[in-house]
């Protein structure tokens, strides 16, 4: 199977680069996001994993210090393990699940949206009805109940549960976009001239939709982090893999840390870690929103 790659000229690339660089808020979000990805990849090589070897119960709940830089810059957790190990080694799981969930959401959302908008007719009616029904559901409690009863740490299953309903919003946007594009003169002409359907869909439809897909993608990613961290932090999932939610759960529950000044840094550091990551995603969503051609907004 030969995949058609949208032909993007060099000039167009330059144009995009200019648009991106001038979009301060998007760049800010992107930089935050890249830093977190580095933390979850390169960071693992620098910071030792949280292991029993590092644990020194006498050192529990130490405030940040510059001793053995950079090992103790975040202080230590309830076992005396450097908190930075917990945070850094907790990153890959979060990135993994949210990436998988995003792939599922974008895949299903774009395909179903295109089908509904491009083919139309009874199929469109049927699919649109499904999108609407899903969009009226309170998805969070349903995700909560499924995650609790399936009770797994398998990233793929968790990604599947988290992205179970989030594709519907994207699918509806894609459907509207496709529907309005399909009736544009130049696309009709391309169809009549017998251009390759796949080429039309990729170059003339998906490419202009990119910013929209990105906005949805970043907003959905925010939701995945919200859900995943919350599920672990409140003990709805088994606490075996290291991730920010587990760090937070231990900080809140072990030895009443939340009610003693000792646990202060243990709580603040993971909380700030999560907030900054979410803000990065939000800024990218806002920036991608501005990439959208305002002329295309009115449908």
């Amino acid at each position, binding site marked *: 199977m030969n995949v058609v790659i949208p032909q993007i000229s060099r000039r167009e690339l330059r144009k995009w680069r200019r648009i991106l660089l001038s979009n301060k808020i998007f760049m800010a979000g992107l930089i935050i996001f890249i830093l977190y990805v580095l933390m979850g990849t390169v960071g693992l090589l620098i910071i030792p994993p949280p292991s029993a070897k590092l644990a020194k119960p006498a050192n529990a709940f130490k405030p940040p210090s510059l001793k053995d830089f950079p090992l103790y810059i975040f202080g230590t957790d309830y076992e005396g393990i450097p908190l930075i190990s917990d945070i850094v080694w907790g990153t890959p799981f979060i990135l993994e699940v949210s990436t998988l969930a995003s792939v599922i959401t974008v895949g299903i959302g774009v395909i179903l949206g295109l089908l509904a908008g491009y083919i139309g007719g009874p199929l469109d009616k049927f699919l649109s009805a499904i999108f609407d029904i899903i969009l009226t*559901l309170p998805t969070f409690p349903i995700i909560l109940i499924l995650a609790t009863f399936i009770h797994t740490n398998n990233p793929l299953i968790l990604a599947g549960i988290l992205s179970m309903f989030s594709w519907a919003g994207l699918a509806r946007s894609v459907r509207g976009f496709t529907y309005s594009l399909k009736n544009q003169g130049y696309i009709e002409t391309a169809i009549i001239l017998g251009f390759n359907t796949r080429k039309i869909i990729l170059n003339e439809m998906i490419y202009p939709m990119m910013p929209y897909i990105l906005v949805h993608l970043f907003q959905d990613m925010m939701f995945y982090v919200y859900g995943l961290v919350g599920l672990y932090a409140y003990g709805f999932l088994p606490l075996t893999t290291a991730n920010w939610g587990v760090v937070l759960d231990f900080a809140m529950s072990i030895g009443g840390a939340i009610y003693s000044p000792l646990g202060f840094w243990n709580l603040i550091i993971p909380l700030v870690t999560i907030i900054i990551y979410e803000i990065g995603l939000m800024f990218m969503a806002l920036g991608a929103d501005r990439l959208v051609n305002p002329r295309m907004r009115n449908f």
Partner: protein
Amino acid sequence: MKDVIVWILKRLGIAAGTVFLVISATYILLRYAPGNPLQLYIGSCLSQGYSLETCYARAKLVFLIDPNEPPLEAYANYLVQLAHGDLGRSLIYHLPVAELIAKEIPWTVFLVTTSLLLSYALGVLIGLFSAKYSGGKIDSAVTTISAAVNAIPNYILAIILLLFLAVYSHIFPINGSYSVPASEVGFNWIFISNVLYHYTLPILSFAIPMIPGWILGIRSAAVAISKEDYVMYARLRGVKSRDLMINYIGRLAVIPSFTRLMYSFGLLLGAAAFIESTFGLFGIGSLYATALSSRDYPLAISTLMIIVAVTVLGNIIADILYGVLDPRVRVR
């Protein structure tokens, strides 16, 4: 008018179907998921050396559920009970589920309604203000700060508020829905003020992350409306700018988000689990969390059913209201 009634009936039909599907799927999943109190009871009874029949009989006495029932029959019985308004019995509280939910739901409704109204009022004010200066420095500052605040997960904000305003500084109580003796509970000022005092932080942690959503909605609507001819004419006539913002633009700008308000209500009922657990409050959120962590499936399913039903209905009401409020939109 006839069209509208047909449309409403159709929507209600779809809503009932949706609730039915969600309930069926969760029932089948939960009834046979391992680790619920019923199975634990039978397991411990078997390990004490009793025969399977004895254990089943005992479990039936304790939980009023027949563990020996074939799956299809159990499911059919459950549906028949539901149709009679019997939501089943909790496996951990040993009380009718309907009774538990009825006792807890007012707390959550109070929390969600107050948070929604507070965030909406602030969102409208800030949104209109930022629309007035649209395109300027104030506007972009509002947008950026909104985005950042919107990104904070509400339970994270709850933990932060709890830490700084309750644990470290004792300004607000650490947990509980109220702290007056049982004799004082009722509609009196002491009790109400005490409840408000206890609910300040939960309401703030729910409301603050929601404000940006309202701001953005109101702002974009207000910017679009202020370009309309009638606003221009009013401006030329010399209508005061405050009057213009409130009566000419604000009134129309709040319509789209006002309907979203109705719809958000149900969504928040479902999201209350984390906040109510953080502050140790009464409410269906914390009830749901307890039901889930103890695998109390009759309680969990019925709570979910109430949440789904309220959300779906809220959605329908929101659509109807939209048609009533905004004559430009008529249901086709």
